[in-house]
């Protein structure tokens, strides 16, 4: 009998879900691409006595060989023709498109092709139960999820963020059979695209289970951060979570990191001018550490403002903050989880679009012109503050299923188990090959907390 296996394209932050899944289901092998075979994945897999096998390290037999090189040669030949060119492109435009497209697939197909080759090879030796990943749009995972669908291998995309900005261009589709979102709010953009509610399940985010404990230890967390950064304990803390321009939609204004930081620091300057005393913290992404610090130093240089720059302790800062400011960001959902008032700063990083938060979320919206005022009133007006926090508390379940019950990893693991079990049933029953319809029916039965259905019941 072939060894049982699941394919994991999960990011480290989502591995608690795999951990719980392996608690519940005996799986012989976890398959992962080299790029995703992190030390933490090794640790999780070993703890359960399973074996981690690197997909792109598997050697295909001759008849399994996908000959990826030949596909690239075929694409080169096709690209040289004019057949595919849009009608309104001139000679210079055509040359530019050929260069952009050619460079891109020649760079991206080999690595993704190696993962696909690994999947094809693995399928011959293992009893594959499930493909699960933290995204289904990047190079290798998009190909992997397409393969899973073509082979009727159940697949789950555990969203790596709540889609507060409606899914655009590269994000505007669902490759996996099922999408796990953090809360019903995360389904809205996909439902608006016409994706069936039967394919979306609200589970919560395994990476946020820690807020259950963190928010009960607020004072301890604050003291620890105050000590670590030498902050004045008497002053309130205003945290700004940075954003950046991915430039994957033309709605992106292009320089979001600098433009939004400038808006925040200007608001801080205004507050200082009004005599408001507070500690300003810029919480940047680790990947941005050096560049980000330089930008903050440059923008804050001429003011009397003392800004603390950090890339660490994301969740701790959300709990320790008195006000958290961010830009159409999941960090504001974390503020809701942390019980911290949040202010969204829309209209700077992206062109006009649907609001990221509904008014009932308790998240305040501010523009560059009134950000200082919105921060000041949340610091000064206890009634306003309590009202916003109460709203956020009421809305929390829509943004994060289960609120702060700390059980998101468990819910994702249960969903993984249900999806994986259906494979086993179909396999042992020697059923005819799954049609799309059959697969949908199976998934339908496998999924009981379905977003659209819950909404109808209200």
């Amino acid at each position, binding site marked *: 009998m072939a060894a049982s296996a699941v394919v994991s394209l999960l990011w480290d932050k989502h591995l608690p879900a795999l951990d719980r899944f392996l608690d519940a289901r005996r799986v012989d092998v976890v398959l992962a691409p080299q790029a995703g075979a992190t030390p933490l994945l090794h640790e999780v897999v070993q703890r359960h006595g399973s074996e981690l096998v690197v997909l792109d390290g598997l050697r295909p037999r001759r008849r399994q060989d996908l000959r990826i090189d030949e596909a690239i040669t075929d694409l080169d030949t*096709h690209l040289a023709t004019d057949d595919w060119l849009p009608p309104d492109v001139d000679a210079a435009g055509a040359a530019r498109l050929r260069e952009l497209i050619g460079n891109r697939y020649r760079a991206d197909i080999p690595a993704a092709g190696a993962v696909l080759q690994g999947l094809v090879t693995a399928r011959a030796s293992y009893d594959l139960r499930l493909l699960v990943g933290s995204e289904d749009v990047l190079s290798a995972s998009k190909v992997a999820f397409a393969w899973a669908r073509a082979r009727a291998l159940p697949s789950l995309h555990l969203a790596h963020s709540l889609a507060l900005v409606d899914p655009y261009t*590269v994000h505007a589709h669902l490759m996996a059979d099922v999408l796990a979102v953090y809360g019903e709010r995360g389904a809205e953009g996909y439902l608006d695209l016409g994706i069936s509610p039967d394919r979306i399940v609200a589970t919560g985010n395994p990476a946020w289970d820690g807020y259950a404990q963190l928010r009960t230890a607020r004072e301890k967390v604050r003291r620890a951060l105050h000590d670590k950064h030498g902050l004045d304990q008497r002053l309130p803390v205003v945290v700004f979570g940075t954003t950046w321009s991915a430039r994957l939609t*033309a709605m992106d204004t292009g320089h979001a990191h600098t433009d939004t930081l400038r808006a925040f620091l200007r608001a801080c300057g205004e507050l200082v001018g009004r005599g408001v005393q507070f500690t300003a913290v810029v919480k940047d992404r680790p990947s941005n550490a050096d560049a980000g610090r330089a930008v903050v130093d440059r923008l804050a240089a001429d003011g009397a403002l003392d800004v603390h720059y950090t890339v660490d302790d994301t969740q701790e800062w959300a709990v320790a903050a008195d006000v958290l400011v961010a830009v159409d960001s999941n960090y504001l959902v974390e503020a809701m989880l942390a019980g911290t008032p949040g202010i969204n700063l829309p209209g700077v990083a992206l062109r006009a679009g*649907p609001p990221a938060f509904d008014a009932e979320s308790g998240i305040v919206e501010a523009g560059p012109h009134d950000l200082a005022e919105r921060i000041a009133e949340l610091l000064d007006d206890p009634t306003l503050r309590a009202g916003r926090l109460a709203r956020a508390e009421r809305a929390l379940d829509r943004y994060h299923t289960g609120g702060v019950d700390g059980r998101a990893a468990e819910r994702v693991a249960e969903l993984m188990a249900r999806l994986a079990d259906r494979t086993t049933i179909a396999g042992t029953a020697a059923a005819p090959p799954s049609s799309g319809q059959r697969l949908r029916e199976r998934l339908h039965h496998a999924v009981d907390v379905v977003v659209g259905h819950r909404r109808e019941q209200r």
Partner: protein
Amino acid sequence: MLPEVSRPRSVARALRHRTRRLPTGARVLLPWTRSHASTPEQILASVARAELTVVATAPYGLLLGGGDPDLAPLAAVERTHAWRRLLSWLPEDPLLAALVELLERTLVPRLPLGATRHALLVLERHPSLPGGPGPREQRLRLAPAAALASIPPEELAAPLTSPRARYLMFTLLAQLESRGPDQAAQSDHAGAVLPPPYAAEYAEWRAAHAADAGATALTRAWARDCEGRLRRGVDLTLAADYQLVGDLLSHHYRSFPEDT
């Protein structure tokens, strides 16, 4: 003002009954709500049969939904979650509310009958001149450019400082443009209603949507006729999509400002 008449077969009879004693030239106000049983065509026919003339129609309630899908400017968006999120800010955002009030006062009454679920009809007792085909046809035709021209640009400037109000206005304009009989002529008109800085922002916003649509379509289309891209039923070019969209937006559509 007449009470609203709901049962369609009796509309003409009820109208005639209630207005028969009125002298020629007398005017009455009829509230109307669109339903399957009372379409714009039906109510206008009933009015004509009752020997009344439609002097004016005043649709209202742009955001209340239930308009004719072919006529309602927001029919394509009003059922989305995104739109409901936007409208949730009405009680919180006075500028958004001010924009809606401005539109209700200026643009909405000039939309064709049926563009909203609700309308008021001004009728005149005029047996010799029943509501003829000319005005009725006019009332059923969408004329967004003329309706838009009724908004004073100076009154738009303040509400549009709210990003939520800008999103509502831009969406409305884009929807009107896409529905106009002459799209090319409409585009000029739609942006022209906005005060200058917002007219420029609207043009960029439209261009951004077009660039997104173009980049996404090209990414999916360029290799479609190349069979060699397939391996075991999987399109290998999917691997390039993510970065390619970004490359196309940056270097082909030039959607972002040059780095300084």
